[in-house]
């Protein structure tokens, strides 16, 4: 497969992605519009402004940060799909990382692009199916899922997820991971209130990781390729 073929596939992905994402954005707006039209229930301007101002500045900043951080990880197809189906931090990004590991491919390669898209698509379909089933079976499921005995388990989803993922990925990138992990642990231990700001610190930690890695790279401390991930195929090298 030629570079030309790769480029045309990528170009088509971007073109289709734009159509899908903006199209779905408009569809999303259809819900409140339909509520207004069908029930003749137009929102009170002051309440609407108050509600939007109370969340939009923060959410839009986080949204922008997520785009800058996650797009290089997910690739084009994975991003166009992931930013529509959501739950990036808790689900789509770790799922993509797990898929890369399993297929032994890297992001930024044509294989990584394909695998990342497959991972996000499968994850999205499974999530949609589970929520659909849950909605259908909401009456019998609610007492089970909201059982106080199970509450501690679901409260600890994030540590349970990142503990295993950390071992799988940090073990292969110990030198690169050491500085950002240390910085973030110290930061959140000393200033616990920041822990609730979540995603905002992803690019901060990434910037620290990149800076530290650059220094180590310049000093020749990262002689072997980062991690033991296999080399991409010839085409991946472009």
């Amino acid at each position, binding site marked *: 497969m030629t570079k030309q073929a790769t480029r045309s596939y*990528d170009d088509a992905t971007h073109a289709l992605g734009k159509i899908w994402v903006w199209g779905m954005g408009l569809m999303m707006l259809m819900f409140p519009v339909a509520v207004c039209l069908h029930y003749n229930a137009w929102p009170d301007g002051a309440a609407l402004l108050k509600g939007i101002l109370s969340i939009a500045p923060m959410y839009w900043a986080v949204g922008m940060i997520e785009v800058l951080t996650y797009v290089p*990880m997910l690739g084009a197809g994975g991003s166009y799909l992931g930013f529509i*189906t959501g*739950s990036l931090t808790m689900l789509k990004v770790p799922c993509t*990382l797990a898929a890369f590991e399993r297929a032994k491919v890297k992001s930024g390669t044509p294989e990584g692009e394909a695998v990342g*898209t497959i991972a996000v*698509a499968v994850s999205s379909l*499974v999530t949609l199916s589970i929520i659909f089933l849950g909605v259908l079976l909401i009456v019998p499921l609610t007492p089970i899922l909201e059982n106080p005995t199970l509450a501690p388990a679901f409260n*600890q989803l994030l540590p349970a997820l990142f503990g295993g993922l950390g071992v799988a990925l940090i073990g292969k990138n110990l030198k690169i991971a050491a500085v950002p992990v240390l910085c973030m642990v110290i930061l959140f231990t000393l200033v616990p209130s920041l822990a609730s700001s979540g995603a905002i610190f*992803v690019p901060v930690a990434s910037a620290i990781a990149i800076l530290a890695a650059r220094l180590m790279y310049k000093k020749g401390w990262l002689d072997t390729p980062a991690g033991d991930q296999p080399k991409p195929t010839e085409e991946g090298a472009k």
Partner: protein
Amino acid sequence: MQTAFSVNDPFLFAIVAIILLLVVTQSVFFLVRAWRRALALGMEKSTLRKVVKTSATFTIVPAISILIGVIALSRKLGLPLPWLRLSVIGAITYETPAAEAAARAVGTTLSDTATALTAPQYSVIAWVMTVGIMAGVIFTPILCKRLLSGVDKLEQRDRKWSDIFMNALFMGMISAFLGMIFGHVTEGLAGWIPVFVMLASALIMVLIAVCIKLLRWDWLTDYALPLSMVGAMAMAIPITNWVTGVVA
């Protein structure tokens, strides 16, 4: 004329169903396209099946936690809106605060389940939750190509540094979330629960890796992450009970 309103009106379910069908279509479209592309690149079908299996099993538990979010929000907002918001674009970490902020803006709260929402109140909440989460929808198509061509250029300039750069990006993300897990340790033993759960997850992952290596249980590889996650979540129950007992 105003139509009678209920947060679980079939009309709302119909709108949600249309939007979700489109999301399913988009997912299938990208899946088929990427699958064909992977085969054209010479990837084995068996590898792709492994990717599908890993992705599907990995997704189950987080998806159940999203479902719990839908159920929690449905008490005040009904099923259609939380179902839509947590299936499309949204994330559980954003939608609950967004819904709470929107509910307060219309003079109620999510916990006030005794009072039914009026259509205008519901309309405000739907608008706030939708507009609040639109950043990714607007910026991804604008920035995606530029960001990825930047990554390409980096790779062309210095292949090795590009590899390290991407790994550093991933490590940054993981570091941020590992750090957040330590966000409550200054609150005493109870604040260490997330750390203990993380360690349990890490330990289970190490045990699985040992089994795969020593016993040659390669089949376990597909389930390593889901098992470590589910195992650690199961461990969270006795850990929490133990810590609560000690603290009390």
